[in-house]
């Protein structure tokens, strides 16, 4: 069973709650889909935790906020850029160097892991609807693509008749990724959910049954928000955690 975690965004409380949950659920492998830093107040701890999991066989790829640490914040919103500037001062040279080593994507069998739209991973485009999903399907050959970036869980399918469909998964409900079609699974965010549910989101992929299960894990939002305020980061980054928006 593979646990897939995306958009951690330096939220230590959310990340440790999800990792605990996944360990208890019997996850044997971990894939991190990027955006370890930015927005939240615990970038160093989160990166150390991910690096530690990598040492034990986990896979991690690069997100746009991670890239911004070493490549600049052009194209980012004001508060995202402010958070990156603050984050740079928090990271050890090791951690910053680690981000530079991360790949843009990771392929395993017929499955592709990527942070954003798979047709052009470096362009960091969102996949929010069937039309954008089609662009991703057409731009890469993987049967199953798994990405994050949007912070809203979705499952897109491409049928044999070339119809692109969208589905909003309910948490803790295993959904079979049937072999008769192609799939694009968009993870929710661990550290900054934006679908109206403040609980942290990650997914479990059962390789044997080819079933994907989006999980929601309640965590200590209060503490995560307090740390954001204490760090002097934009207030909205703290308040949005309570509403999951």
């Amino acid at each position, binding site marked *: 069973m593979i646990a897939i975690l995306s958009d951690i965004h330096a939220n230590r409380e959310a990340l440790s709650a999800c990792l605990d949950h996944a360990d208890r659920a019997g996850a044997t492998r971990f894939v991190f889909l990027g955006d370890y830093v930015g927005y939240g107040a615990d970038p160093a701890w989160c990166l150390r935790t991910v690096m530690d999991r990598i040492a034990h066989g986990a896979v991690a790829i690069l997100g746009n906020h991670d890239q911004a640490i070493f490549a600049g914040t052009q194209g980012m919103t004001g508060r995202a850029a402010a958070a990156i500037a603050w984050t740079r001062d928090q990271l050890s040279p090791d951690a910053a160097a680690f981000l530079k080593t991360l790949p843009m994507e990771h392929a395993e069998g017929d499955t592709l892991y990527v942070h954003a739209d798979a047709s052009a991973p470096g362009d960091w485009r969102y996949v929010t609807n069937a039309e954008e999903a089609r662009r991703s399907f057409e731009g890469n050959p993987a049967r199953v693509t798994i990405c994050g970036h949007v912070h809203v869980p979705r499952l897109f399918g491409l*049928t044999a*008749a070339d*119809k692109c469909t969208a589905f909003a998964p309910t948490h803790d409900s295993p959904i*079979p990724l*049937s*072999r*008769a079609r192609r799939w694009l699974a968009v993870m929710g965010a661990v550290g900054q959910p934006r679908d109206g549910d403040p609980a942290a989101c990650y997914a479990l992929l059962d390789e044997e049954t080819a079933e994907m299960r989006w999980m929601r894990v309640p965590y200590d939002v209060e503490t995560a928000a307090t740390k954001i305020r204490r760090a002097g980061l934009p207030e909205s980054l703290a308040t949005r955690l309570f509403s999951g928006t």
Partner: protein
Amino acid sequence: MAPRRPRQGETIDGFTLGTPMRESGMASVFEATHPDHQIPLVIKFPHLEGTDAAHIVSFEMEQMILPRLTGPHVPRFVGAAGFEAPQPYLAMERITGPNLESCLRHLPLATEEVTAVGAKVALALAALHRQRVSHLDVKPANILFRETPDGLRGDAVLIDYGLAHHGRLPDLIAEEFRLPYGSAPYMSPGQAMGRRDDPRSDLFSLGVVLYQLATGQLPFGEPLHLAAVRRRLWRDPHPPRRLRPEVPPWLQEIILRCLEVEPSRRHPNAAQLAFELRNPEAVRLTPRAAKARRDGWLTVLERRVNLDRTPGPRRLAAPTAHSAPIIAVALDMREGSPALSEAILASLRNVLLSLPGARVACLNVLLDGFITGDTPHDDQGRSARVQRLAELRHWAAPLGLEEGRITFHVLEGSSAADALLEYAEANGVDHVVMGARANSMLRTVLGSVSGEVAGRAPCSVTVVRARETGA
């Protein structure tokens, strides 16, 4: 290259194919055996040739849904291979009892038969709907019955989930087909408009089946194309009693309620429909029961015109799963204190406040041992029963529930817990409310009925205890 179709005698993944059972445009179905499974099996192979995606998608859908279903009302899933395998298949338990289609030769059926069959199917639908699945192809060919050990008609089993909708899975049928899919004579108006996410569609289809069983005719005929199927949105069927005056008014009421175009005018859920079929005295009669003929042309025309002006049944919200539960209140008027009676009443009132669609069944158990002595069993039993019913009605009067929302039942048995549990199981009860036995001496001797019910009930149980004062 088109794959060869499987044949009798072949072995695939350990399944040995027996007699072919059905050959449709979509799939071949065989009886089968497997050394690891000691139950009768069927195995279904989708046809892979041809360009019609419909049967491929139906097969995928059934393959997703069937393994997720449990209980006596569905064939048990045994195994499957998807389209990645050289030969996709779906293997499941074979239901050996009779198919409802075999009854169609002897129509119309007697009222007791219609309601017995109907209640069994409604309970099966309730079990399915609780698992978030709408069948969407309810028709006699898809309704089977388990055989009881003494050869009687047991639980209804719904087969064929190729058109079903699961509330928590992507709906492949809706995605692939813009046209409604289903069996034309039985299809609900909502389905005819392309709506697949309302479980009350199945109540409509069951209404068509009940109509057919009771009158020997199909209420909307056998339309051959979609435009003709949609006629049922404005054209009402002949009332069953017009075709067959023996149909009692309460059964006409039930059937015509199932056949309402607006889902919100049908029974709120399948369990409540089953309850009415089993308890005719609980049916509240409306003008539907007395309807003698179809609506006049002006009404029909008006409906049709209005339909064109509105966006169709899509505007209606489907009910939530628990908005219209059946609540059973178990009362022991002999032993319980007035304070406990009051506490149960208060507790029930709170539940009803938040659930205006709820239906209440007030239960009391007449224990076998209660009737003793030399007086003829019947006389004493009857008067005890009448007395208990009167007591139940008296207790419930303060609730002020209108007829049809509350019913009263005196059960018999040697164990109160067994009688209550059996009732809850057979009637699809969603919630049992009962009092705790207060007297600790009696509880020690007799055991706790509420404890046993709470431990074994198929549903939620609220045990009410009057707070002890003083002591």
